[in-house]
């Protein structure tokens, strides 16, 4: 469903993603992990056509992203890093925009919008302009936009960060249920317990390269242990000057 070969992105002298190859089967939930700046978001951007790769091929839903971007986009739902919301539209209007652009029939769109508003607890802010909403509400709106057209593949960049626990639980349930119905999910996260709870496939990226990938069934140790070992060991520093409050 999602595959890429030798995916590379360079920004001048800096190589953000360096020859990544991966494959995610239909109905899988793939959690892409790694420290800040490892190349996770850049990878998501290339997989969704937001960013042109310097080299390498991306195929999503059987189509090459760079060949017919519009056709691919019709089959994807994306929660981008910057959420992709318009300040001058309310949450309701963002969902209507999605329904209109994806050509959902009126009644179907109305039902789905109400269900998403309820499931993601967006009702109190539904008429508020996105520019005036909290970060969490904006993220939930962007997620609702990704889910609304019932996509074949979902790409979610840090979906659980800044989300309240109840909505986070609802989101996990929605993603697991969707994957069981055949929706493929590719997500990035720093919240390892959540990733371990829902993902069926893991990969860890460090300095633009995949340093480890495994199926959930093959995990022999807690994900956190593997992560600390392969991605970045925890630092054990002590800032002694913090012990004397008031000393500038």
């Amino acid at each position, binding site marked *: 469903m999602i595959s890429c070969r030798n995916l590379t992105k360079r920004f001048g002298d800096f190589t953000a993603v360096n020859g990544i190859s991966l494959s995610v089967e239909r109905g899988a939930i793939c959690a892409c992990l790694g420290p800040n700046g490892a190349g996770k978001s850049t990878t998501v951007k290339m997989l969704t056509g937001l960013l042109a790769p310097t080299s390498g091929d991306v195929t999503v839903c059987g189509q090459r992203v760079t060949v017919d971007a519009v056709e691919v986009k019709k089959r994807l739902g994306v929660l981008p890093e910057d959420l992709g919301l318009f300040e001058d539209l309310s949450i309701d209007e963002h969902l209507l*925009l999605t329904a209109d652009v994806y050509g959902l029939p009126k009644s179907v769109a109305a039902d789905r919008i109400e269900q998403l508003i309820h499931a993601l607890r967006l009702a109190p802010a539904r008429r*508020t302009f996105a520019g005036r909403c909290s970060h969490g509400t904006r993220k939930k709106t962007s997620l609702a936009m990704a889910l609304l057209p019932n996509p074949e593949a979902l790409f979610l960049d840090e979906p659980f960060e800044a989300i309240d626990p109840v909505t986070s639980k609802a989101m996990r349930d929605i993603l697991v249920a969707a994957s069981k119905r055949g929706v493929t999910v590719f997500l990035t996260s720093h919240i390892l317990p959540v990733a371990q709870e829902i993902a069926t496939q893991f990969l860890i990226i460090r300095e633009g390269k995949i340093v480890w990938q495994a199926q959930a069934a093959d995990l022999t140790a807690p994900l956190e242990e593997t992560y600390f070992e392969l991605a970045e060991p925890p630092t054990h520093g002590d800032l002694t000057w913090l012990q004397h409050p008031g000393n500038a």
Partner: protein
Amino acid sequence: MKFPANNLYYAAIAFLVMMDPFVMLFVGVVAGIVLFFPLSTDPLRRIPPSRFQLWPLDAAERRLLRMVSPWLNPMTWLVAGFAFWRGVSLGLGALAAALFLVGFLAPSLGLRGKGRSLGLPMLRMGPLGELIRKDLRGLVRTLDFYCALIVGGAAAAWRAAGLLPPDAFLPGTLLALLCISTCAQTLFGLDGRPGMTRYRLLPLRGWQILLAKDIAFVSVALLFTVSLAPLAGFAGALAALAAARYPAIRERRSQLRWRLQSGTSFGGALTQILAMVGAASAVHLYHPLLVLPCLVGWSISLWWGGREVERMAL
């Protein structure tokens, strides 16, 4: 030379030069200030308010920063120059000061609306409906819109009262178009980075995204010219969009709400104004069918711009 400004500034300078060529010296000084101080807005607005509040500055230091920062804006110097320069009438000086104050202070005056959309029933207007709604809302949140409203509204009132001679229809139309024309150069200016991301994610062709923006712009242009010379207004709006297509896509500048929008260069503004005036005048003075070449030109610009928008996506 890049000299980012609103088309109204260019027009105001042109009128001043026509009044007194000596004014070029003064304008040159202001242009120099712009080059040396690219912060043509309130510099304090560049600091996130929450960060500014957290800085350990006492009240006197904050007041000092508040007083100093406007002097980094070239318009402050222009207005101050007007105050001491006898060549400018009190009325013109006061108008410049008022425009400056509105532009400078508006973002701080809470003119952000209620932050909620009206609870009206949502009308489904086709695949581009919500994009057009967003773009219209964006236009209404620029000062350019209100300048055009003053011109278009006053013209409509005078015409309704029978006080407006037919000879004034074309100049009135051109003035209203001039007020709103910079917005055609800054079509993506209010979308911000997240908005650009969304455009890249939507399964729409580039020309569809531009079409939504063009419909919003032409609708506003027609609103303000309908009581004057609507066909000329339509032709002028199409020409303004076509002539501004390149800067609107290739030289995108982020814009602020509740301010006059700022184009990219004097050359771009001049080209746009000439195209707009030429198209509107030709349609009004010679033949209504001259609107057809305007439509063709606009269509070509839409086709070219659409391809550019799609390239921008990848």
